[in-house]
């Protein structure tokens, strides 16, 4: 069953639109309202373009476009399929909301160099969508590197000592891993297959490489996409928390880290092929690596007092859920892992928005200082609670569905160890999230200022975080679009 491909330039435009938005953003640098208006318009156009492709993808077809053949047999090419669509939709819709939020946050804190901030923000989004819609490993790699570089000025936005060391760690990890691990694997695959790097639903590596080579390549590629934060290459994520919160929110809960796992998903499904992996029984190794990361990161998260760092470690764990789900190589597991990209994105971004809002309104960074804050910022903390529900995987929030599928996947495969791991980790999630919300609402504040009347953050920020919280809940009631997409993708991948 090969769905007919449609040739259309829409995916290219979807990626380009935010790149082009840089020009008006820089030109309008002096006038903040217009500048952010341009950002908004670009975001909406981008979302519109991606959404316009949704019906085609839902119908089981794909959209392809080859932009430029840069080296013989190696093109910058775009292809939209269901998997890419999930990610594209999530990233582009969240961009709009994040723009709204960052307006509130940046203005509230009177940050410097906002033009630069919004420009690189747009570039990062272009790269993210580029990754989502890449048709081959080369294009993927290209946009992946572009994303690493474009986010550097965002991470180091404050330009102080802390930002410098954080930025250093960030780039060292990402660039080292990608140059040392991904690039050689890429070229090796290129040579071995005689010039094929295009993603194929069932993988194209089978028959070209032996078992040991496949294992080495798998490990190189898994760790090479260090953005996925699989331990031990995870330390860049907490370090990158020096960035302004909107950056952390979009890039480190959504775009950057999700690009990492998305790349891994793509490589497993499009390069190796699920059948090939399960024939060689390579999934098991990855599940163990992922399981280790899940448990350890949850334990570390428990010990963190800095809210953003706790969220960062939580993210590391959640990312490994996705990898783990994929590595189960069962239909339900794969579906679950794809859905988790979307569900976790909405949940986690809510949490980050809340952390940012708290910091902006009160200047508090540490969880121990947030006792009783619910009285002062009820909306924020309510959203926080909903976000936590989603990340833990408790009904009333979208995260429930993806986690259900992941658990189902383990059962389907008979991997009860993994079932236990997932459940334990959910418990740990609950253990590090619930106390925050609980103490915020039900404990007596230590800080007397919290007793005062309700005083939320900048309205833009509040609107943004309420919006994401509502969507998170809506996704519980109506997970259909993502579910359908994930199902289409899974069928496509499993049935060749």
């Amino acid at each position, binding site marked *: 069953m090969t769905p007919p491909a449609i040739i259309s330039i829409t995916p290219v435009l979807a990626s380009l639109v935010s790149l082009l938005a840089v020009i008006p953003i820089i030109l309008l*640098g*002096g006038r903040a309202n217009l500048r952010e208006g341009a950002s908004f318009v670009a975001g909406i156009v981008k979302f519109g373009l991606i959404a316009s492709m949704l019906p085609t993808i839902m119908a089981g077809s794909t959209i392809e476009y080859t932009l*430029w*053949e*840069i*080296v*013989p*047999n190696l093109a*910058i090419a775009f292809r939209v399929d269901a998997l890419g669509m999930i990610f594209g939709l999530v990233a582009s819709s969240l961009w709009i909301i994040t723009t709204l939020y960052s307006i509130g946050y940046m203005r509230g*804190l*009177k*940050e*410097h*160099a*906002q*033009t630069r901030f919004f420009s690189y923000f747009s570039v990062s989004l272009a790269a993210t969508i580029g990754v989502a819609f890449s048709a081959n490993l080369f294009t993927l*790699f*290209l946009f992946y*590197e572009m994303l690493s*570089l474009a986010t550097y*000025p965002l991470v*180091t936005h*404050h*330009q*102080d000592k802390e*930002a*410098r060391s954080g*930025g*250093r760690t960030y*780039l*060292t990890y990402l*660039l*080292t891993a990608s*140059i*040392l691990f991904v*690039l*050689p694997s890429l*070229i*090796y695959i*290129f*040579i071995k297959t*005689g*010039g094929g790097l295009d993603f194929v639903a069932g993988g194209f590596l089978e028959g070209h490489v032996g078992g040991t080579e496949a294992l080495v390549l798998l490990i190189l590629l898994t760790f090479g996409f260090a953005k996925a934060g699989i331990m031990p290459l995870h330390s860049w994520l907490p370090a990158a928390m020096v960035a302004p919160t909107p950056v952390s929110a979009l890039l480190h809960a959504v775009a950057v880290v999700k690009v990492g796992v998305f790349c891994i998903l793509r490589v497993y499904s499009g390069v190796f092929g699920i059948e090939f992996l399960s024939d060689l029984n390579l999934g098991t190794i990855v599940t163990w690596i992922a399981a280790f990361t899940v448990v350890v990161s949850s334990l570390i998260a428990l010990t963190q007092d800095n809210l953003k760092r706790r969220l960062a470690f939580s993210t590391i764990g959640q990312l490994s859920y996705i990898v783990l789900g994929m590595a189960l190589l069962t239909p339900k597991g794969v579906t679950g892992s794809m859905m988790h990209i979307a569900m976790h994105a909405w949940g986690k971004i809510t949490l980050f928005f809340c952390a940012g809002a708290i910091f902006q309104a009160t200047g508090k960074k540490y969880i121990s200082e947030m006792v009783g804050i619910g009285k002062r910022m009820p909306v924020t903390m309510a959203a926080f609670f909903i976000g936590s529900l989603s990340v833990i995987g408790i009904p009333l929030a979208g995260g429930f569905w993806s986690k259900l599928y992941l658990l189902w996947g383990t059962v389907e495969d008979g991997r009860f160890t993994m079932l236990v791991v997932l459940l334990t980790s959910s418990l740990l999630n609950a253990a590090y999230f619930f106390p925050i919300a609980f103490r915020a609402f039900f404990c007596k504040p230590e800080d007397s200022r919290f007793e005062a009347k309700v005083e939320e953050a900048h309205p833009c920020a509040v609107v943004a975080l309420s919006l994401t919280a509502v969507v998170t809940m809506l996704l519980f009631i109506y997970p259909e679009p993502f579910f359908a997409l994930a199902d289409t993708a899974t069928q496509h991948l499993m049935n060749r």
Partner: protein
Amino acid sequence: MIDQAPAIVLLAPFLTAVLVVLVGMKYERACFPLVVLGLCCSAAAAVQTLLQVIEAGTLRYSMGGWPPPFGIEFRIDGLNALVALTVSTVALISAVYSKNRVPEENGDKISIYYTLLLLVVTWLLGMVMTGDAFNLYVLLEVSALTSYALIAMGTRRATVAAFKYAIMGTIGASFYLLGVGYLYIKTGSLNMFDIHEVLVAENLHQSTTVLVAFILITVGVWIKMAFFPLHAWLPNSYAFAPTTTSCLLGPLVTKVMVYVMIRMMLTVFDPLYTYLQLNWGNIVVWMAVIAILAGSLAALAQTDLRRMLAFLIVAEVGYMVGGVWLANTAGLVGAIYHLIADVFMTLCVFLFAGIVFAKTGKRDITATHGLFAKMPLTMAGLVVGALSLIGIPPTAGFFSKWYLIQGGMAAGHWGYVTALLISSLAMAVLFFRVFEYAFFGVKPAEGHGDHHPSGKGKFSEASASMLLPLLGTASLVLLIGIFNQSIVSIITDFVGQFNLTGSIMR
């Protein structure tokens, strides 16, 4: 009508050089336009030559009308034409760049400086185009001679470096001359292609003399290209020379020598001889690995910006020597493509270093403090050059590394592949250190506070004559990367005639 383009490539800068001396005595201000005009002619002729080569294959031009081997002949194939075009383009860019620098650094000798600059370009072009082994020696020695002068016109450290260069350069050229003599004693010919024919026809590849000739020529050329253990002359020469000198010589000299090495190995000696009979590939590639690592690590240890870049050249030479000696098509194509790409990316970073020096008067890396805010366009140029050196797509540097790594993998030489990757990382560290200085230089008032609206007043870019070459080079780096297929196809045509193992992936 015989086509004169190949001769004009060379004659234009040469005759302009003589004119510059004459005109410069009276009208010093006329020198700069003359230089640019001459180099423009040269570049145009080089383009014409390249187009003809693409269209009609190898181009032959006999000097004096004597058929080879009696006379001296230019035999221009894709490789020559490409490298010649590269050389003349770089010369043109550096000449434009020199507009303000030369009066500032060598104010009393403007015409002399420009003459030497044009002459060195002539020599380099001559080296690229000539088909005569002895003629190459003359050019080799004289280009070095001119370089000594261009370097010695700098600070007093540069004078010391120039002397060291003079000694080592003479040893290198003399070794080459001896090698040619050893070939001559066995073959009786001096024309490169003729020597090759005689070597093959009389089965001289078994002779010790030819072996010694090969060693002498190779070692001589290695000294000239600063291949790692023989690189001592390079760093200080390029670090302390006048700005324009290092912009012109830094990218070009070593690359032209790599071209000479390729020409000698493939055209004069046979690939069968150099690759199969001698079978030294493994050793030389390991030497290249050491060169790459040593160059990159030494660059990491530098605090002087241009010295750091000079060590990068040492590492890059390792790339190319290794690529050539991998003895397969991908490696060779990669090395030649890297030769061209590297010229422009090195030029890009050297132009940047020159601008920083001109603006701040400091040589240290810390001189880049806060440049992102002050000189965003200049920094944009550097970023492109640096990304290319690191090897990030879609810059030219990525694709050269792409082919080189392919070559390394096809040859099964994992040490070389690893060295390439490690050196990429080292360069990443290097340049991000510079970026950090440039980015964090301005301390924002306790981290926050919007001072953007007033930001426009404090831009202080370099003058257009310095900025435009930098931006032009940066865009060339991008263009060479994006249109790498057309360049690679010319190179592949050249390499294809040697029937090496392992074709590049199509």
